[in-house]
């Protein structure tokens, strides 16, 4: 069950993971992208942090919408609308159910619709999708999903311009999505 408490803690942990791995994410984005994914996510999470700090006793929907708006208006690039859409879809859905799996599935549908990517295109979808499909999120599910992007040939996003040469590199958006879910795991464990 996603609660306001979990969500706030989740975002806090995600913020720190992005902060620690900012340079690594940008490095991953260099050979197959434009080297900015770490900076993009960091800018977004600064926005999320500031946005959440301003809320007074918010409900879950308000929090999720706030996260979405911060990401949409701060990140830009490809990851901004995608992460933003993910949280917007969760916000829309959370009135109906707070089941984490159901919310992640709603988010995944939004990401796929927004970006047109499907499984195997070497994007963040390749992490969101296995996580959405599993009964229990584990670090192994996350790690395997991230690792699976390495051998894929990119068909969406900047990496797709490389064709065959995109093979052999992890997808940066998949890695940052991995951090998101690891942060969620750690939050659930800590509460």
């Amino acid at each position: 069950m996603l609660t306001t408490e979990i969500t706030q803690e989740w975002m806090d942990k995600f913020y720190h993971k992005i902060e620690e791995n900012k340079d690594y994410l940008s490095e991953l984005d260099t050979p197959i992208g434009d080297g900015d994914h770490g900076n993009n996510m960091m800018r977004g999470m600064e926005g999320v942090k500031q946005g959440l700090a301003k809320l007074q006793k918010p409900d879950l929907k308000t929090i999720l919408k706030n996260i979405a708006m911060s990401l949409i208006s701060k990140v830009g690039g490809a990851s901004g609308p995608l992460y933003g859409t993910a949280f917007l879809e969760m916000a829309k859905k959370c009135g109906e159910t707070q089941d984490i799996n159901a919310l992640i599935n709603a988010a995944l549908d939004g990401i796929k619709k927004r970006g047109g990517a499907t499984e195997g295109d070497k994007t963040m979808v390749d992490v969101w999708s296995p996580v959405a499909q599993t009964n229990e999120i584990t670090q192994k599910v996350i790690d395997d999903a991230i690792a699976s992007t390495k051998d894929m040939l990119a068909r969406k996003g900047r990496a797709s311009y490389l064709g065959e040469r995109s093979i052999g590199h992890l997808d940066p958006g998949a890695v940052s999505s991995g951090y998101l879910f690891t942060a969620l795991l750690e939050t659930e464990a800590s509460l």
Partner: protein
Amino acid sequence: MKTVKKIINEPQNVVPEMVDGLVRAYPQYLKKIPETEAMVRSDKKSMEGKVGIVSGGGSGHEPSHAGFIGKGMLSAAVAGQVFTSPTPDQIYAAIKASDQGKGVFLVIKNYSGDVMNFDMAKDMAELDDIKIKSIIVNDDIAVEDSLYTQGRRGVAGTVLMHKLVGAAADQGASLDELEKLAKDALPHISTIAVALSAATVPEVGKPGFVLADDEIEYGVGIHSEPGYRREKIKTSKKLVSELLAKIDQELHLNPQHQYAVLVNGMGATPLMEQYVFSHDLLDQLEAKQIKPVFMKVGNYMTSIEMAGISLTVFDLADNKWLKYLNYPVETIAW
């Protein structure tokens, strides 16, 4: 702050400071939309009763896109973070500032980020009953085209697209007419680049790729996206041969057709080299019995301080297009 050899202050302030410097240096052409890094034409009168033209994208391509704001060209432009698509709220603000009741036409370069952010902005604008049409420019023939991928990138040919739709809009074209014009012209515009060095995004602090002292790379994108082949540096003549052959494969150059040509410096390449390149290009076109009817040489769609040149050839299949290219404009950079 990492030591990057650039004339900047804090790397994260580059975009707002740059936008501020630009609008204050050129108040006669453009002004900033408050609370955004979007800029709109100062000459409001010239926009009246006309379809607005909005473009934009990541920063680092100066003078694109704001340098093309002005009568006869763009109504507004949005500057994202360096090499990062601007966010929907900013694009939406540019659309609102450009709309005069006739709708707004968006010129978008084909990158996942730009397409998605402009798309979200379009949704926002349509909620306000602003009519929106758009073109997704994909002139970079270095990339294989395919229905199953993102397809080709939008690069320097985008500036010619700005000029076309800008001129037509200034002459009163409707939103539908602009869409048709843009769609008709697009497949006739092809661009291909060669890089001698890569750009360094200020916040990243190191170049997007590294070429040896004697290496060049064909087909790089305007965000240091890798190209299709690395080689030892060649003479200008040989670079022109390589790039022109690619263009020829795509456009099937024909002495019976009329062509416009844009030789575009990527940022750090002096005009000296661009003119030498142009000399070789015109020689090799002449050998194909082609003499461009329109040509421009200079820095139009750059990649920060990347060294290199892109070549855009535009097959002027429709007579009107040349008129649009020659139509007078009042901008900083055309």
